[in-house]
């Protein structure tokens, strides 16, 4: 299934969870947060939250700024 991760469409197995997606794209898990279709997914929910086809995932972290 196609999922949009940080603005880029990518292919993942059907019924992937947020945890699997984060691991798959290789982003270090510490200090990041995930939004699914514009809503925060708490870290404790990553393994239970199944991502639907066409979903939009944003994975954010802190960078220099301000």
């Amino acid at each position: 299934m196609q999922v949009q991760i940080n603005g880029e469409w990518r292919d993942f197995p059907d019924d992937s969870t947020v945890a699997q997606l984060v691991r798959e794209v290789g982003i270090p898990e510490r200090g990041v947060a995930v939004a699914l279709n514009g809503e925060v997914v708490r870290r404790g929910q990553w393994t239970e939250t199944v991502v639907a086809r066409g979903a939009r995932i944003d994975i954010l972290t802190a960078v220099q700024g301000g």
Partner: protein
Amino acid sequence: MGATDDSLSFGEHKLDSRLIMGTGGATNLSVLERALVASGTELTTVAMRRADAEGGSGVLELLRRLGIRLLPNTAGCRTAAEAVLTAQLAREALETDLVKLEVHADDRTLLPDPLETLEATERLVADGFTVLVYTNDDPVLALRLEEAGCAAVMPLGAPIGTGLGIRNPHNIELIVSRAGVPVILDAGIGTASDAALAMELGCDAVLLATAVTRAEDPERMASAMRHAVTAGRLARGAGRVPQRFWAQASSPPR
């Protein structure tokens, strides 16, 4: 390090240093590290951006190693909705309820959008955040933001990154005179005298980045800012002499 407690508090957070630093603009992390240490800051901003497999910029590890608390900002957001989501993601990623709320109206001025800023303040306060809010040097809006429940108001001295100093000192004084929450002068600081003036006007703290990170010698400028903030705070507390039109002899008459 005075003998008396002169700490700054908002929400459950307490700071001994009244200089809040930003991390933007530093050419590399080692320059940033030396500047942050020289500044004596205890609270420093970071921005939230999309992560990649490279694993971020390393700024988090640096701030954790230095024991400096994180103040995530919502820079780059144009609407209240964007700012609220960014703040929620920052809280989740960084495990802090602190947020520096900034909603910019456009890229050329980076001035705060007052309507979106007020709406975002209300929503973030309702969601349990400790909101430090970047605002115009508008005394009326500052009161409205306080009524909305912000933990500190952060009026600009001048637009972000301009180094133009405090363009309307009277407005800053008006904000200070009526504020029931800490006032943090944010943006526009160019050099040490600007930071000292902010404190002399009665601000509770100063937030700056560019003036240090883009200075020729960031470490030395960070030290200058630290001293300026301390000096301005002391001068404010000491009570300056009134300004006079005519001279007044300081030596006894002959």
